């Protein structure tokens, strides 16, 4: 770790002011990605701005047909929340499958989606449910939020405050964990929503993406059999020592089918 200044503002306005004033500042949420990055000396910010002093950013509540979850809500809190478990059990289950208890009790929704790790779980839910990301500046629809490998639509200085998840008719998330890291090697989120079927895939490529072929097939009939014969193109999928692109493509189809089965379960 290189040395840096530490700030813990008490309001969003103060945090924004600090971000405006300090050239190289990084926001700190659960620190599960940022702290290892700093320890490995892969980043050397002048300042770290801790969001934990800002009130109200960890709330979880139902607002009409949607679930609003604060950016600082921890994975463990989402997993255990009766509101989430009742409204979108697939989302609670997803949060419960992230990392280990230590990680789940530190890591946050906001940190996860802002980091947009290609193997992270939350992006699949955000995209799969067609959620809206609320920031200090605006509201960003999920389809425009995740823009590439570790990249999002956020502008410098923009702070994610919450995510609003429309409550689906039914949904499921099935993850094939990387054997070593247990991040998603392939994770598929399937949802039947009032605006249609959505299928989002994480882990398989450089960035979470929707699987149009599966969505169309499921729109005809929301049943596992609709995905029989679904061939996922391995072009553009990731390849590493654990899984080549062809294997990932195969797993996407298998996980999609299992997710539909689970959603119907």
């Amino acid at each position, binding site marked *: 770790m290189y040395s840096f200044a530490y700030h813990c503002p008490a309001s969003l306005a103060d945090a924004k002011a600090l971000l405006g004033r300090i050239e190289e500042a990084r926001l700190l949420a659960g620190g599960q990605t940022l702290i290892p990055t700093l320890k490995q000396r892969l980043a050397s910010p002048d300042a770290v701005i801790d969001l934990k002093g800002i009130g109200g950013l960890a709330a979880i509540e139902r607002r009409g047909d949607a679930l609003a979850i604060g950016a600082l809500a921890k994975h463990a809190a989402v997993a255990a929340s009766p509101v989430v478990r009742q409204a979108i059990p697939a989302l609670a289950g997803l949060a419960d499958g992230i990392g280990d208890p230590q990680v789940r009790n530190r890591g946050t929704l906001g940190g996860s989606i802002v980091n947009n790790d290609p193997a992270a779980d939350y992006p699949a839910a955000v995209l799969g449910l067609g959620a809206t990301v609320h920031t200090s500046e605006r509201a960003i629809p999920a389809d425009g939020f995740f823009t590439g490998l570790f990249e999002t639509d956020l502008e410098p200085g923009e702070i994610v405050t919450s995510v609003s998840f429309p409550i689906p008719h039914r949904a499921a998330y099935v993850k094939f964990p990387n054997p070593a*890291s247990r991040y998603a090697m392939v994770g598929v989120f399937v949802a039947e929503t009032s605006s249609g079927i959505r299928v989002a895939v994480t882990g398989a490529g450089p960035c979470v993406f929707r699987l149009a072929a599966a969505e169309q097939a499921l729109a005809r009939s929301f049943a596992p059999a609709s995905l029989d014969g679904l061939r996922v193109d391995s072009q553009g999928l990731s390849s590493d020592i*654990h899984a*080549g692109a062809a*294997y990932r493509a195969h797993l996407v189809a298998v996980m999609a089918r299992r997710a539909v089965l689970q959603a119907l379960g």
Partner: protein
Amino acid sequence: MTQDGIGAPLRRKEDRRFLTGRGRYVHDIVRPGQLYAVFLRSPHAHAEILGIDTRPALAGTGVVAVYTAADTAGKINGVPCAWGIAGKDGKPMKEPPHPPLALGKVRHVGDPVAMVVAESLAAARNAAELVQVSYKVLPAVTGVADAVKPGAPQLYDDVPGNLCCDWAVGDKAKTDAAFAKAHHVARLDLVNNRLVPNAMESRAALAEYEPATGDYTLYTSTQLPHVARVLLGVLMLGIPERKFRVVAPDVGGGFGSKQVVYAEEALVTWAAGQLERPVKWVAERSEAFLSDAQGRDHVTHAELALDKDGKFLGLRVATLANIGGYVSTFGPNIPTNLYGPLLAGAYTTPAIYCEVKVVFSNTVPTDAYRGAGRPEATYVLERIVDVAARDLGLDRVDIRRRNFIAKDAYPYQTPVMLQYDTGDHAATLARALDLSGWSGFAARRAGAASRGKLRGIGIVTYIEACGLAPSRIAQQLGARGGLFESANIRVNPSGDVSVFTGAHSHGQGHETVFAQLVGELLGVPSANVEVVHGDTARSPFGLGTYGSRSAAVGGAALFKAAGKIIDKGKKIAAALLEASEQDIEFKNGAFMVAGTDRAKSFVEIAGAAYTPPPSYPLETLEPGLEETAFYDPVNFTYPGGCHVAEVEIDPETGVTTLVAYTAVDDVGTVLNPMIVEGQVHGGVVQGVGQALCEDCVYDPESGQLLSGSFMDYCMPRADDLPVIVSATESTVSAHNPIGVKGCGETGTIASPATVMNAVVDALAAYGISHVDMPASPQRIWRAIQAAAPRAAAE
């Protein structure tokens, strides 16, 4: 017999401090004024060092020194090898120098290039980033099969073909003759995957120098403090033993990786002397991946000749063994002496010939890793036995039974050097079949099939050699030192007992087991026996702990020392009881005149030894009650047994789940069944890790370590495992006075082959006859993909 003596399932004394965070590891030791060392390591697998500029680093705040090979050349000798082997032609292995800091060339990613010493860790790290090394990158070779190809990049100018040694064991002509008359020859090509040891405590070293006396003290996470003192002090640094104390305090796991002596330990010691201040270094986890000696890494072709009844006639094995960029402390010995002679296994195969090419490559050096050579041998043998059974349509249990060395054929001379003492393979087999429910497997397979899963069962019957080692045999095989063990028993004036052993515990539980053993022998409660280890200033010279040797060799040394204590006690008792020495019996913790009720308790004798009463014959008998013994074993010990594993494979994803595991082992006398069970569990899991998930992968082009962190190197976890059923079915070893064989590595030796036999059995329907380790989801899926069209066509 004491309540808590031999055979009692006593809880480990040491666990209280470990579980409450009070263990004291090197990292926990803080010396006044200590400096911090950081090593700058090569980012390249193979490169020439064109120049190093340390000036910018030296100018950094808090930087005390920056050393490179230019500073240490001529001052620190190369890292030595403790076991030199000889090739088929009788010539010694190639042993190129291993400078502590890379000199002229780097040979693997992680090779240390410079050492920075600073007032704080942060300052040392900052400065390390400022050291400027210019490299000329050379082509690298990491795979052993590639390294022996013509035209492969050469690590050393004077080691043609990267060949360190071309070694063989067995009778080639006799084996060829056996193959000539074979009814069938089973063939198998396999890879034994490279592993990263991953002890929970990373390596660490803290050295101090006392200018007033010229004394050095090194606290280091080692398995063999006395050996380290000789290799580091005498051979590398020129510090005589009397001026060098090596302390291995609590050590958080070694698995062989800490029986290696490392450059960092010598460099830290040397720097402490140069700077006259304590210097501390603690490896980071990512550094451990790049610098702890790794394990396994073989490519093997094996052939088994059988007659028409499935009797083994001959075994032929050719192995390429990757020893990495340098000759490590025991590196070349592992894939040769600890491998080839194990290929007889539990069977009567009359002719065996094994050739091993020991090969350099641009990877981290390999050395002992739990089991060290024997898991590799067991894997070859037990896999090819299954292949042969399938080829001939024989039952896998049956083919093993037909070839067992019968209980009454022991002692048994194998065709590959070893002479086994005792064993009962039929007994361990029968017990394992029973405990694993072998005969009910078909129903479990059908049940799995109804859930869409492929279920397989695997069996291994093994024998291994441990209890290293008879010094004379070891020296004939190239050991550059003895392999005995030492013990000192000090009976204190009040009758409690301090035990000093040359063995070292880094997870084995010596503080408990040795106390039980000595307590039993001397008739005192084990709670009154304190075991001291890991400090050259306190224990007599001993060889340390590895190769499941502590009980068989260290325990036998304790037995010998205890015998001397009793002998002296008898003399004292005879005087006090006015009897003749021959009439004194030691029984139930008391010295008694045979056939009478006249007796002196152990405590009374201890008291008399230090406070001699008038009847004590000081003219002829020294006061005090303390004895030292050195025990050199007559032979290795040979644990054996039978393991059974069951797996379920999801054919859609390739995921293998281990659903049942049974281990029945013949470990000889069981000193503490709870500790044996713990050792077996840990060993099994370590082998399961190799079979199902662990894989050290280098990029074949760049030589970069692709599995360089736990994000990519997959360790087995608790939720990957079923309940492990374990039992012992022992025959007593004839090779040491306490009858123990060893239990530290049996699990790791048997489990990779057991699990893989189950995996291959699960895939039998696809006509798959072998898959390499680890049976990762992708590998299994690919095997099924490749076989499915074939299976469908048939």
